[in-house]
């Protein structure tokens, strides 16, 4: 198995999964079912996180296809462009869904404007993802194309995937020398904001400052972590789309896998009811301590995988 298998395996979740989540969400809205609505928000957040991995493994798949004759570059490029747009809209929907889960405790449900934003985002994501998936399928599924389109002999060698390395997206970053260092600085700022929430919440669960801190107090820090996460997702996307050739290989895929696990880890703190029994002076339940300890380890590992990319990965 290689990354292409991984991309082909993972690409079914964003399309099929988001569609199912949307159906659940619509059912939840029409039946006024809190459980259905909450379940669909969890699906949206988890799928948005998982799609990070789907998106970046497409890069490895593309790199591998460069050596395959008969794969037309325009088909790969069209799929990539459609996937990028669908990915961004999905992440925005994921952020609104996360916010909906976080404010659920205080508002006692989903706020109306946020429900509207999530519904619009989920419909748009499902449509855009279906379009991107269709274009992806056309890269190598002769049965859904007109006859003769994929006659390998008719393809100009210069049109083979990867033969046109100059993409318009990367060019803006290349021509403006301030973009890359600015995004790097913001990537570090995002890391610090994420860690502000992660360190204080996880250490409290593990017992630090437990005499004065309840879970309800540290819960307020979670949006800070989400802001950091989104900042790093956005700046990371700039790095990735500008110089995709740096982000291939096992170390980067491992980093993205850890980011998905980190997002799932943070979701526990938004969802778990058992955490709200932690008052000032109370010990956290053992499961919460395990999740908190794992969370700290995951984010340290994310920093390790990112920082070691020039040494052990393919970054320069």
């Amino acid at each position, binding site marked *: 198995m290689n990354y292409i298998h991984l991309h082909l395996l993972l690409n079914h979740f964003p399309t099929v999964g988001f569609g199912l989540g949307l159906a659940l969400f619509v059912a939840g809205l029409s039946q006024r079912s809190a459980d259905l609505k909450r379940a669909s928000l969890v699906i949206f957040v988890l799928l948005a996180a998982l799609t990070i991995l789907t998106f970046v493994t497409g890069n490895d798949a593309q790199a591998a296809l460069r050596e395959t004759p008969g794969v037309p570059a325009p088909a790969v490029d069209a799929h990539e462009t459609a996937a990028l747009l669908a990915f961004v809209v999905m992440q925005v929907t994921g952020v609104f869904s996360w916010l909906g889960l976080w404010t659920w405790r205080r508002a006692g449900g989903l706020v109306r404007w946020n429900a509207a934003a999530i519904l619009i985002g989920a419909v748009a994501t499902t449509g855009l993802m279906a379009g991107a998936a269709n274009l992806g399928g056309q890269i190598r599924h002769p049965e859904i194309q007109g006859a003769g389109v994929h006659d390998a002999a008719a393809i100009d060698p210069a049109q083979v995937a990867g033969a046109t390395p100059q993409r318009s997206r990367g060019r803006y970053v290349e021509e403006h020398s301030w973009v*890359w*260092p600015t995004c*790097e*600085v913001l990537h*570090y*700022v995002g*890391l*610090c*904001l*994420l*860690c*502000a*929430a*992660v*360190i*204080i919440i996880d*250490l*409290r669960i593990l017992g*630090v*400052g437990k005499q*004065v*801190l309840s879970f*309800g*107090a*540290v819960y*307020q*820090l979670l949006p*800070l972590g989400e802001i950091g996460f989104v900042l790093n997702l956005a700046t990371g996307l700039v790095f990735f789309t500008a110089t995709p050739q740096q982000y291939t290989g096992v170390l980067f895929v491992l980093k993205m896998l850890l980011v998905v696990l980190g997002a799932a880890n943070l979701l526990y703190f938004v969802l778990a009811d058992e955490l709200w029994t932690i008052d000032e002076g109370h010990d956290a339940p053992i499961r919460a301590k395990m999740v908190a300890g794992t969370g700290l380890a995951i*984010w*340290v590992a994310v*920093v*390790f995988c990112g*920082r*070691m990319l*020039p*040494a*052990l990965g393919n970054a*320069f």
Partner: protein
Amino acid sequence: MTNLLLRIEHSGLAEWIRSTDSIFGYYGLLTMHTIGMAIVVGISAGFDLRILGFAPGLPLAAMEKFLPFLWTGFAINAISGTLLLATDATHKLVNPDFYVKMVCIALGLGALQLLMRDLGRAASVDTAARSTNTKVMAAVSLACWLGAIVAGRLLAYVGAGSDVR
């Protein structure tokens, strides 16, 4: 002076850091430096933002419990930073940007000390947090950490010997 810097840069330790594949080599030290930064700035910024009005329900009395972790992060960075500096002493120690970073860190730690003193003096830490003085100090602290991150990141881009992409 240049002679001294050259001797530092070509010392056995600096040579070893540059050439080794071990986890304590150049990129391993950079990793530790990044983790240390996340600890120091993360904890400090978390409480600075609390003082400035974010997460108002977070009791500031908890801040001192997190200070040992902050200082552990600072120790990691003092050690990893000194070793990283040794590997490129001839360039970094004559780069004004390096001194901008050092000043930002010194001021950031100073702001943290003044903040803790203000909070310690007040009858209740959460009343002290409402004073303008404390809020200014929190804002200064945030600005210093941001300045240190910007100056630190730009060390790869400005000055002689920078590894501009």
